[in-house]
């Protein structure tokens, strides 16, 4: 898309963009970076023509002249750049921790309303969490202090698969327990027969799927589908897995590869955080949103999409 001038580009900046958040950069830093980059690019585009002002000049006791002169007060060097960071509203849909990387949905200007909808709709997020067997740290993550070492010779792929399947089943049971319906009732049976259900509030993490996708001792990778999860919760998952495998483990990386229908192929890399890429990405995100409108306004407890 060719951008004619700054004003039309600014008007186009309403909607959702899908960002690839790098690890070790906080979400606040990402938003700040987006804002400053957008201002830089908008200020670099052709500006509107300078304003004129009416000047009435000459002595008052003779005929005075009225003419249009350039208004110096309108010069960007005097009144400051046309677009500043405060002009761009920017908000995230769901938070990603400092050490997580991956898909981050960000609303720009009018799009901040969409991020609110996505936040309350609680779309499922899919993660790849990598772990390291044999060592445990006090924070459950690589940045912590090493507190325990253990042997890993007895850990095999079938063992991991078995325990992971067990963990998934346990989480699905709690999912129904947290729905607030009596476990022995007909209502619960009807609900459960429909499939997975979404949690009643935004506080408790619920895991829908858990799978080991790579095993290369001592490294392994899990794929998790979850709602209401947070960084530290995913770390503890790896720690618990280590204990259940009768060894120790800590997390080495958390990557969000999908949120709802927005996957990593849509996400913009750090080098592409520029105005023209944002506007292109916004259009792509709009198409995804229009195709899956029911995702944003869920009507029942049944998990879809």
């Amino acid at each position, binding site marked *: 898309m060719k951008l004619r001038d700054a004003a039309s580009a600014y008007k186009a900046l309403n909607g959702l963009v899908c960002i*690839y958040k790098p690890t070790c950069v906080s979400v606040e830093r990402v938003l700040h970076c987006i804002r400053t980059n957008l201002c830089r690019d908008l200020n670099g585009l052709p500006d509107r023509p300078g304003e004129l002002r009416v000047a009435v000049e000459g002595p008052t006791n003779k005929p005075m002249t009225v003419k249009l002169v350039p208004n110096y007060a309108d010069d960007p060097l005097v009144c*400051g750049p046309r677009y500043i960071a405060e002009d761009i509203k920017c908000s995230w849909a769901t938070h990603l921790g400092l050490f997580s*990387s991956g898909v981050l949905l960000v609303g720009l200007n009018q799009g901040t309303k969409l991020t609110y909808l996505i936040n309350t709709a609680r779309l499922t997020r899919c993660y790849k969490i990598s772990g390291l067997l044999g060592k445990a740290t006090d924070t459950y993550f690589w940045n912590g202090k090493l507190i325990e070492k253990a042997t890993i010779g007895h850990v095999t792929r079938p063992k991991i698969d078995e325990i992971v399947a067990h963990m998934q089943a346990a989480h699905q049971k709690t999912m129904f327990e947290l729905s607030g319906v009596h476990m022995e009732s007909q209502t619960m049976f009807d609900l459960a027969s429909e499939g997975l259900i979404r949690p009643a509030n935004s506080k408790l993490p619920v895991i829908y799927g858990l799978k080991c996708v790579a095993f290369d001792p001592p490294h392994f990778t899990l794929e998790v589908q979850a709602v209401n999860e947070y960084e530290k919760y995913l770390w503890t998952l790896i720690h618990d897995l280590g204990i259940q495998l009768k060894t120790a483990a800590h997390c080495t990386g958390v990557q969000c590869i999908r949120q709802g229908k927005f996957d990593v192929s849509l996400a913009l890399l750090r080098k592409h955080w520029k105005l023209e890429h944002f506007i292109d990405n916004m259009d792509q995100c709009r198409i995804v949103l229009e195709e899956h409108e029911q995702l944003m306004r869920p009507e029942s407890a049944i998990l879809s999409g």
Partner: protein
Amino acid sequence: MIGFSKATHYAFFFNSIVYGRINEHLTRNLDTLYKCISTKDMNAESLLNESEPNEDLSKITPHFPNTFNLASYINHSEVLQNLLHIKVNLSKIETKPHLIDKLLKVNKEQLQKYVYFLKDYVSMDDLGNFITKNPMIFYESLDDLQIRINYLQSKNFTKSQIQRVVSKNPFWLMFSTTRIDRRLGYFQNRFNLSGNEVRELTTKQAKLITYNSQHIKTNTFVIREEMGFDDKELKKLILDKPKLLMINQLHLLERFKYIHNVMNIDHSSILRHPGVLLSRNFRVKQRHLYLKKLGRDQYDPKKANYIPLIALAEGTDIDFCKVYAKCDIYAFNTFLKTL
């Protein structure tokens, strides 16, 4: 969508300064006007009758309230307009209200004299930037400035070198000759530089000489003690990339640790391409990991498929993929989305 900079939080009270000169001439006129208003009814006809019919009232301005920024003065102040014509960014100066008070007291003749002096050393394109960075230059006497230029000449700096030093470091002329002499002496002794090397260093990175000396001492310590370069290597590093002394010490060490401990690059290779220490760590990291994945992470010039270290830091990703990784840029982007 007019953006007012942060300075809008400060209220400036300098309208009296701009209009001070005009007001002196106007006192008499205003007095007659006030008399009319106070003694007679406030209708225009009586006002006209009382004041002298042939008097020129064009110099009377309406009451000017306190303002938040310079934009409201510029249409009436010739000095500010002149500053704008040489592309001084007034909105940036405005963020420091104490500078504005000083800048507004500068008169036209003074401005002319300084611009006339500076144009020998700073090109017209850079002059706006120069005054934006250092508006206090108008408060240094012209004789002092000439002495400071003469000092550089006495130290055998060529004309083009002096021009580069002054225009690249707008604060250079604010430092007295004794201070500059002390700083140059410090660099010469600390890094064992010859006269030519001092001049080369000063011209290459003029800001370094007037930089915070504590910061320079810390970074020298980091390079010598924590990174383990000896004095000769330190000198080579400084002359090659003087900016190494000006960046954040923690970032410098983090970059070195990654290159030295994780990538296993020895000191002599880093010395050959010190620019790699000036690039942000994530850039080096992602390119190195990609090369490693392709099996191309070979940084030894004596073996085949040599990748120079600087390729990890410089150039666009497209060039990097084409020349060194020998792959498609899309493959590289896909890889970046797995980190």
